């Protein structure tokens, strides 16, 4: 009140001043303008930041929540699930994902999406963090040039992330066994890769397994590497004792594949990516020389095939060249018999060098023709299949092919498919035939006549015996008594005090004396041979005997 006292005259210009201010645009309008600019800038920012939208179909929406579930790549959030709806046919769940602007690569046609949930399996535990945070969607961008809006989500995480270095290979096998996606691949018992996919072969006659070998170990996959199924435990009993071999505990439970190059592979090169290999049953077959293409043959046997089973070996001169694949019965209306038809596959390459030489000689034509011609030649020279006993205890049979020069000629039909190999009866069969012949001969012997004759003879014999008993025996008794008497007499004659014995003793003494006299005489004569002529002289020794017959013999001596 004290300072500011304006004169009332200023009132008149004051009013126009106010009016002039009214006409001016107030600065306060800056506030809504700034607000508008902020809002607009946010809208534009958002608009620019809105990335592409993709729709991913999953089998189930388990763990997914609209506007909450995030999409992550390497644990970085790249988008959010904005909507979850059922597909029209209600078989799938369609999750709409709003990707960030920076995540445009994730619209490439080969991008993969999968739901990360806690997983506990033989290969390990994964996704534990999702136990607390809930599931999220994992993504892996591809490399394709094209982009897509619709994707099919994977049910399991892809085992190999995009851009990982290594090579993929295809394995062919008859059945999958216990292999699964993620099954390990071993090289010298070190895990170097895993199974990434499998599918039935296009013709349904096998399984194609796709494997991934991580770099740098992919260089060990050579063009002639052999893959085998390393699942489970191999137990073998040999001369060296019991041998158990496995790859690893994981592979026992969940299967696995191992590979190795053969010991001798001079010109093996590292295999190209997507090269195809065969998956063998086990290591032994895998590392065996390659069998080559099997050839199907058929044999007809007119005998029981009991004991011949599928997979029984087929021998050629003792070399295992194939196996039996089927054992069937046929009916032959002509003979009204049931011949057994045995189908087998043979691997000509198992003959090794022989096969090569045979093919050289067989001349041109494709392999099929060659094989037909070679076999034709063999059959002409007496090649016959025969069923033999492999094991006497179990009665296991095998098919043996041998040359039998004496075999009757059989027409060989080179056009027949499968090729037919003529057969001869088995070794046991022959034995059986011989036995049969023997038994037949036995059967031809007239046993009845023989028995009748024998009967007559026996009656005759009986009669004779009766005669012997009635007449001969009493006489024999008399004779024996006589003999006894004779022996008693002889006994008495020869006893010590019998006169005959005494006389014999005296006679012996007489003989002794005589012998002594003869000696004296001979002594005398040897000293005095002249006494034979002149008689005894004085100096001659006294002797009591005169020479008799012996003196004549001595006489010529002095004459000489």
């Amino acid at each position, binding site marked *: *009140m004290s300072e500011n006292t304006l004169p009332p005259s200023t009132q008149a210009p004051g009013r126009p001043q106010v009016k002039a201010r009214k006409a001016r645009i*107030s600065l306060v309008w800056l506030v*809504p303008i700034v607000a508008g600019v902020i809002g607009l800038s946010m809208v534009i920012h958002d608009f620019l930041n809105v990335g592409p939208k993709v729709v991913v179909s999953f089998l189930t929406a388990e763990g997914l929540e609209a506007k*909450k579930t995030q999409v992550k790549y390497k644990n970085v959030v790249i988008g959010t699930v904005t909507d979850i709806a059922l597909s029209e046919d209600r078989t799938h769940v369609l999750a709409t994902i709003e990707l960030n602007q920076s995540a445009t690569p994730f619209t490439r046609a080969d991008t993969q999406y999968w739901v990360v949930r806690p997983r506990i399996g033989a290969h390990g535990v994964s996704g534990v963090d999702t136990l*607390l945070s809930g599931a999220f969607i994992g993504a892996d961008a591809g490399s394709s040039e094209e982009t897509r809006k619709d994707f099919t989500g994977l049910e399991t995480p892809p085992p190999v992330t995009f851009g990982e270095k290594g090579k993929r290979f295809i394995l062919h096998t008859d059945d999958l066994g216990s292999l699964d996606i993620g099954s390990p691949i071993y090289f010298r018992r070190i895990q170097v890769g895993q199974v990434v996919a499998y599918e039935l072969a296009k013709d349904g006659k096998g399984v194609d397994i796709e494997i991934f070998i991580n770099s740098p170990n992919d260089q060990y996959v050579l063009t002639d590497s052999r893959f085998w199924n390393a699942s489970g435990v191999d137990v073998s009993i040999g001369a060296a004792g019991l041998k158990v071999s496995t790859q690893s505990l994981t592979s026992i439970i969940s299967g696995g594949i191992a590979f190795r190059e053969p010991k001798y592979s001079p010109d093996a090169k590292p295999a190209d990516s997507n090269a195809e290999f065969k998956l063998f049953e086990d290591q032994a077959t895998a590392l065996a020389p390659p069998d080559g293409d099997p050839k199907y043959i058929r044999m007809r046997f007119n005998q029981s095939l009991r004991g011949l089973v599928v997979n029984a070996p087929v021998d050629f001169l003792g070399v295992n060249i194939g196996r039996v694949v089927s054992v069937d019965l046929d009916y032959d209306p002509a003979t009204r018999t049931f011949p057994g038809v045995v189908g087998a596959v043979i691997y000509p390459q198992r003959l090794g060098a022989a096969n090569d030489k045979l093919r050289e000689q067989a001349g041109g034509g494709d392999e099929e023709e060659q094989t037909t011609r070679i076999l034709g030649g063999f059959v002409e020279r007496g090649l016959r299949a025969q069923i033999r006993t492999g094991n006497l205890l179990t009665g296991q049979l095998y098919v043996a092919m041998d040359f039998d020069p004496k075999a009757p000629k059989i027409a060989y039909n080179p056009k027949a498919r499968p090729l037919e190999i003529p057969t001869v009866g088995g070794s046991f069969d022959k034995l059986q035939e011989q036995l049969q012949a023997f038994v037949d001969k036995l059967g031809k012997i007239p046993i009845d006549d023989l028995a009748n004759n024998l009967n007559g003879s026996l009656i005759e014999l009986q009669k004779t015996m009766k005669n012997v008993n009635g007449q001969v025996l009493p006489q024999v008794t008399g004779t024996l008594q006589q003999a006894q008497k004779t022996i008693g007499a002889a006994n008495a004659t020869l006893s010590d005090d019998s006169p005959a014995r005494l006389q014999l003793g005296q006679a012996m003494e007489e003989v002794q004396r005589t012998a002594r006299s003869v000696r004296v005489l001979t002594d005398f004569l040897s000293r005095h041979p002249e006494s034979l002529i002149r008689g005894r002289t004085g100096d001659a020794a006294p002797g009591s005997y005169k020479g008799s017959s012996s003196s004549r013999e001595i006489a010529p001596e002095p004459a000489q």
Partner: protein
Amino acid sequence: MNGIPFARERNVTLCHVCGYVCPDDTHVCPRCESAVHTRKPNSMARTWAFLIAGLIFYIPANTLPVMFTTLLGSASENTIMSGVIEFAEGGSWDIAILIFIASVLVPCIKFLVLGMLLYTCQRRSQWAMRERSRLYRFIELIGYWSMLDVLVVALVAALVQFRGLSTIEPRLGILFFGLVVVMTMFAAMSFDPRLIWDAEVEDV
């Protein structure tokens, strides 16, 4: 209308701050030295400006999330309405209604009432003038209660920080919501309720 004379007719002006009755031609209050106007200067334009700014801010305040909660690893962002719906679906009707009133209803009422007041004043409408001024007082009164939401978020975000188990963070939406409240408060402040009564006389 009811024969109460206007200050202008007595050639006096009321100081806005201390309520001192100044002579008509004063520009500064002799007692408290604040500027003296017969009416709040540029009231209508300012109110409109703040109101429009508030309305603009109200859009992001409702569309952007105000709160980010992580509870045992499950993270979620909530806007104001989604929070209300969540509480309602969870069975807490009372809390849901409270939040709804404080965060949605009150700002809306403020926009409507202020807009209506401005519109009627510009049209110099003489309809229900006493009720309209009562509405204005009501608006001024409830204005700052809308800040409740902002306070709650600020408090909770500061208190709930159990790393790993559960955390709550404020998000951009709450800033805009706060701006909405501030803007509406400014709008209410810059509105001069005496303009309601000016409709009775020809010239302002």
